[in-house]
C-alpha cells in the first residue's frame, strides 16, 4: 500500500510541476465564468420568448445548457486524465525515468495500478466538482434542476476513468505525443458517433442509430456520456422530451444498465491488456 501511495504521489507531483493542474484550473475557472454569463442571459431572454406549443421552454433551455456544461466537464476531465497518463510507461521509459522505479520490488502491476488510481483520484473528484458547480449555476440562475442529480455526474467521472485506462494502455505501446493524439482522436470519434446517432434518431434512420450504438459500445466513454444526458431529463415527457432526445445536449436515447455493466467490463478488459502488454515490454 505504501508503494502504491508513493507512485500516486510521484505521478501527481510530476503533474504539478508540469503545471497540468494550473492549466486545468485556469480553463475551469474560465469555463465556469462564461457558463454563468451564458446562463444569465439565456434565462433572462427566456422570459420574453413565446412558449412553443407542447414544449416547456425552461425545461428545454435548462437541460440543453446543462447538457452543454456536461460536455465541457467531460472534455476538461478527459484533458486532465490524458495529460496525467499519456507518458506513464513508454514516455517515461524513453526519458530514463521509469527504469529505476520498476526494478524495485513493487513490480509493474502495482506501478500501473497506482498510476491509474492517482489519475482517477484527481480527475474523478475534479469532474464531480465541475459537474456540481455547473448544476448550481444553472439551478440558481434559471431555477432548473436535472431529473437525476448524482448518477449523471458519476457516469461522467466513470467516463474519465475509462479514458485514463485507455491512455495508460496506449502509453505502454506509444510515445507520449502519439498516445495523446491517439486518445484524443478516440474520444473525438466517440463524440462524432454520438452526434451521428442523434441525427439518425431525428431522421428515423435505423442504420445511423445502429452505427452510433455500435460506436458507443466500442468507446463506452460516449455511451456513459449519452446515458448521463438521458438521465438529466429522465422524467421529462411529451414533445419536450422528443426534441431534447434529438440532441446534441439536452438528452439522449442510448443508455440503461447495460451501458454501465459494459463500461465496467470494458475497464477490466483494457486493464488486462495494459498489464499484459506492460509485463511483456522490454524497457
Amino acid at each position, binding site marked *: 500500500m505504501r*508503494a502504491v501511495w508513493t*507512485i500516486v504521489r*510521484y505521478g501527481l507531483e510530476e503533474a504539478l510541476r508540469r503545471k497540468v493542474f494550473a492549466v486545468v484550473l485556469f480553463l475551469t475557472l474560465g469555463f465556469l465564468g462564461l457558463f454563468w454569463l451564458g446562463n444569465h442571459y439565456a434565462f433572462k431572454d427566456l422570459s420574453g420568448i413565446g412558449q412553443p406549443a407542447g414544449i416547456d421552454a425552461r425545461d428545454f433551455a435548462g437541460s440543453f445548457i446543462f447538457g452543454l456544461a456536461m460536455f465541457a466537464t467531460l472534455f476538461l476531465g478527459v484533458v486532465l486524465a490524458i495529460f496525467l497518463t499519456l507518458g506513464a510507461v513508454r514516455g517515461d521509459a524513453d526519458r*530514463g525515468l521509469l527504469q*529505476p522505479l520498476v*526494478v*524495485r*520490488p513493487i513490480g509493474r502491476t502495482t506501478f500501473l495500478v497506482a498510476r491509474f488510481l492517482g489519475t482517477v483520484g484527481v480527475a474523478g473528484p475534479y469532474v464531480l466538482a465541475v459537474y456540481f458547480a455547473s448544476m448550481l449555476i444553472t439551478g440558481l440562475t434559471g431555477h432548473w434542476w436535472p431529473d437525476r442529480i448524482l448518477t449523471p455526474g458519476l457516469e461522467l467521472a466513470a467516463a474519465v476513468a475509462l479514458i485514463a485506462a485507455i491512455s495508460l494502455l496506449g502509453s505502454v505501446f506509444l510515445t507520449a505525443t502519439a498516445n495523446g493524439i491517439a486518445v484524443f482522436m478516440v474520444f473525438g470519434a466517440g463524440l462524432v458517433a454520438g452526434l451521428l446517432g442523434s441525427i439518425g434518431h431525428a431522421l428515423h434512420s435505423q442504420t445511423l442509430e445502429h452505427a452510433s450504438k455500435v460506436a458507443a459500445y466500442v468507446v463506452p466513454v460516449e455511451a456513459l456520456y449519452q446515458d448521463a444526458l438521458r438521465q438529466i431529463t429522465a422524467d421529462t415527457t411529451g414533445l419536450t422530451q422528443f426534441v431534447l432526445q434529438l440532441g446534441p445536449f439536452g438528452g439522449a436515447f442510448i443508455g440503461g444498465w447495460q451501458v454501465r455493466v459494459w463500461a465496467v467490463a470494458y475497464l477490466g478488459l483494457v486493464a488486462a491488456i495494459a498489464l499484459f502488454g506492460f509485463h511483456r515490454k522490454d*524497457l
Partner: protein
Amino acid sequence: MAAALAVRGLVKRYGRIEALAGVDLDVEQGELVGLLGPNGAGKSTLVKIACGLVRPSRGSAEILGSPAGSPAARATLGYLAELFRFPGWYTADEVLGLHQSLARSRGGERERRELLELVDLAGARDRKVDAMSKGMQQRLGIAQALVGDPKLLLLDEPTSALDPVGRRTVRELLERLRGRGISVLLNSHLLSEIELVCDRVTILLRGEVVAAGAPSDLARPRGVEIETDEATLTYEAAGREDVPQLVADLVAAGRKVYGVSVLRSTLEDVYLDAVGGETS
C-alpha cells in the same frame, strides 16, 4: 551457496538482431566482475535482463537463486541504468526517500545521510536534481542503487559522466562495497578502471563471450626490457625466469645495467585482441 548472478545460455533477439547469443556468466557473492565489449556487444541487454527490465528470448538468469525479474530477485539488487533520469524537481534527499519507499527500506534518515556521504554528496542533500551537474546526478544514481542494502549491484556505465576525481571516488566506493561482501557487475568502457578494481573480467563481442578471467590471467608475457648504458634492449621471447641470465650476460659483455622490466600485456591489449578492433 547460490551465485549472486548466474546466467546460463542467455539469448536475446530483437527481431532479426541477436543481441545475446548464448551467454554464460557468474558473479559470485562478494565478487566484482567487469563487463567489457564494444558498443552493441550486448552488455546493457545482459544487465537489463539481470534486473528484469528485458525478457530473455532463451536461457536463464538468476539472482541469488531467484529468477531475474521476480520480486525476490528485485528485492536483492541495486541498479544504475546507463541512461537514467531522476525527476528534476526532487532534491537528492527526496530521490533517496522515494527509492527507500519503493525498496521497502527501513534505513530512514540515517541511510540517506550515509549514502550521500558515501558518494560525496553530503553537501548537496537539499539541492534539486535539476541544479546538479551530470557528474553529481551520476553519483546520486549510484547512491540510489545502494538504497535498501542490495546484495548485488548492477552498474551500467556508472562513471561515464564523471571527472577523474569522481571516478576515483567511485573506484574507492566499489572497493569498499567489495569489502562489505556486496557483489558488483560493472559494465564500463573504462578499461583502466576495470583493471584496477575487478576480480574478473568478461569480454563480449556480438552477443558472445570472447574472453573471461582474472585480469592477471588474461594478460600474457610480452618479453623483457633491459635498460643499459648503450641502449634499451627488448627480448620479446624472454620471460621473468630469463632475467638473471640476460643481466649476467650483459654485465659479462661489459654493459652497465640500469633497469629491468618484465613486460605483460595490459587489459587494453587483451581487449583489443579479443574484439579485433571492433567499435560498434
